[in-house]
């Protein structure tokens, strides 16, 4: 459930709000509905990672990687898919850490 809330709310906010909302939403959701530290990290990680992965994949394939393959080359990566993996992991770590922060902060006031 938390996964879905983070995924959907972040997806909507990302359309107009700055990129760092991906570090805000998992934090707020875990502050609001904490379960376990592992759950907080994994849910935050997966929600943001998958959100970035699927949207990135859609943009990559619908333009046959014209831009992503070139940017990958600038970063010395072999292709855009690998860059998508990097993007996914970066997004995931931010989401995971943010979720975890929310969880621990909630625990200090309980």
């Amino acid at each position: 459930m938390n996964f879905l809330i983070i995924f959907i709310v972040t997806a909507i906010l990302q359309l107009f709000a700055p990129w760092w909302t991906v570090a805000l939403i998992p934090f707020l959701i875990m502050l609001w509905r904490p379960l376990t530290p592992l759950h907080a990290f994994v849910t935050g990680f997966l929600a943001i990672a998958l959100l970035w992965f699927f949207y990135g994949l859609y943009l990559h394939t619908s333009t046959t990687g014209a831009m992503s393959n070139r940017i990958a080359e600038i970063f010395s990566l072999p292709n855009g898919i690998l860059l998508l993996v990097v993007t996914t992991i970066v997004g995931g770590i931010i989401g995971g850490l943010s979720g975890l922060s929310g969880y621990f902060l909630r625990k200090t006031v309980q």
Partner: protein
Amino acid sequence: MKFFKAVLTVILTIGLVYALNRPWGPVPALGPFLSPFTGFWQNGEKIYEPNEEIVLKLDSLREEVIIRFDDIGVPHIFAKNDFDLFYAQGYLTAKDRLWQMDIQTRAASGRLSEILGPATLEMDKNSRRLGMAYGAEVNIKIALSDPKSREALLGYSAGVNAFISQLSPKDYPVEYKLLGYKPELWKPINTMYMLEQMTLTLAGRSNDLNMSNVLKKYGNEVIKDLFPDYPMLQESPIIPVGTAWDFKPLPIPDDKHSESKDSVLLNEFSKPEMKPEGIGSNNWAISAEKSITGYPILANDPHLELTLPSIWYQVQLHSPDVNVYGVSLPGIPSVIIGFNQNVAWGVTNVDADVYDRYKITFKDTSQSSYWYDNQWKPARKREELIYIKGKAEPYREQVTYTHHGPVTKYNDELTGSVYLATKWIGHEPGNSFLTFYELNKAKDYDDYRNALAKYVGPAQNFVFADNGKNIAMTVNGKLPLKRKDQGKFLLDGSSPDDDWKGWIPADQNPFVKNPTRGFVSSANQSSTDPSYPYYINWIFAPAERGIRINERLEKMNSANADSLRILQNDNYNVLARTILPKLLSILETTPLNSTYKAAQQVLTEWNYQNSPEKIAPSIFEEWLPALRNAVWNDEFDSSEAPLAFPSRDRLLYMILKQPDAKWFDNVKTPKKETLADITISSFKAAVDTLNARHGAMSPSWQWSEVKDTEIRHLSRSLKPFNAPHLKLGGGTGIVNAITKRNGPSWRMVVELGPTPKAYGIFPGGQSGNPGSPYYLNLLEKWEKGELNELVYLSSPDQQNKRLTSRVILKKK
């Protein structure tokens, strides 16, 4: 413990977000850059859908504008007035080329450091010291005081800004995201910067100092011998020999300086200032008699440094009083090279002597007055502020202006401090934009001549053809009235004799209309033969391209557009035809080992075609520069001060007609070398170089591989945005003038007639976005030497199977 964990994770998260939200050295802020919602992922584009219709509501538009895109991405704009027409041109150009417009304007105005940091400070200083901004400011006042250019500039700016205003950060071109800055609003003066930049590229340097160094070192006799004012061996001038100068010339200023009294030795410049060969162009038109259509056919291919985004942007502009198609320069309203219902025109560079250096003597270090006409004359100051990324305080410099122009100080070990003022056509007030504006609407020859009279610079050879079956060529620009060779050397800033003495009247600029030979042509060679009464320059581009074009056009009959396209792609090497038989005959006098023998064999069997797959041009193009260096380096390659080298024509003349000239001897060796000695040694050196670079003779010696033409992204550093490897022939002095970095930036052929039929191509595509399907979609055809038929519409609702989407701009 709970508290500790909370603080730790919160700090970690905030730290990570902070680190990802800021750039690190050349790495952009990775958070926004990687996010698929804001980052580079957003910059992939799709093709225009057929039958798609988009309506955009925009500010400050006056009436509705309809835009049809064709299958290669060219917009065809239908507007009801000038303002809206240029508004739409600005809007669409920005849509496809915003970053290019930004970076080129910054380069011209000396504002690169604002976004790129201290690395570009020297470039910015040079732009400011040359007075690019000064020139642009002078010109924008004039442009905004004329109702036509005012309307065009304001419309264009409004259109560009309408596009910029509706961008959110995720929509910024990818270069902004990589460099981490924002587009700023477009100003009318930016168009003037673009024109200044063109003037700089095409007429922004001279060899005055290097020539003065030669004069100082070797004296007048050597100058007369090695640096003549007209080619000695061969030339085929732009205005055909025998054309009557049908006017009474103004008195030519007195030649009080038969011996240049002042000269310097300056070693400030680490390399010669001469323009690299390959920045030039071809254009020509054949008469109705020579063409199979019964109407003239016109061709043009401007050669520039080939870069991506493409230099040119194709557009059709239609309003009640104009219907023109051609290429524009991003940042400049109107079409620069193109055609309409009645006429077609094109340009090549004249290379007039319009950039002179004057030696200035200041009263004191404050530079507040300088010696002129036997008294101290006050100088003006202009403060230049250059903002630098990462620095709080801007760099400040007071640039001193004399009546000649801005002054730069050079420190020289030999002469101490030297102050040089630059008198440059780029500072001359005028409204060159009007020339293109009027050519866009021109109906006949008279309109063409009237439009040209308004042009200042950079001087161009304007080729013209019309439906009235006229063809014409005008060596056109505001050309200073000078004494002969004034500006061949450094000039004396204190002497009124050395000032420019006014201008050659526009109607006395060299021109030819409907010559009996049935064609007009130009390829940057000498404008005229020496009978023309005025001085334009003492040296022009080498003659070979012009010679070849004129030979081919002479023989051409019943020609069509394809005949001219084939000539644009002509790889014949006139230079090799001229000199290679002589060099090979020398080579035959000496025994050679098998490696050299094989290379000699290849050259002997060569048909003088610089085709991509041939090996002979690789050897020849390595050999001739090696020979040139062997002849001149011992006398002219000086570490203490750069010296001009004698021209290619002069070298050929010496080899063919003066085989015993003393210059063949290498003065740095005790032995006395002959022409034969250095011909053989330079041949061996050339073959050795190829061996060292490409291994033993094999397909890796093919001309396209050795030349290795590359088309780089404007950033020069983002290699993945460059064009892929290309297989291309041609070369320096070849009609198909593709060198390593320079070449035909646009090829166009127009068949005049009741309905014009036109063809064109450029290396790249309409879009400047590397993630767009229109970034490189024209490259393959360009590489093959093919042309696209250009879609020329007469109404927005015309049926044409190559049309795709329709965009309607409406007033908000």
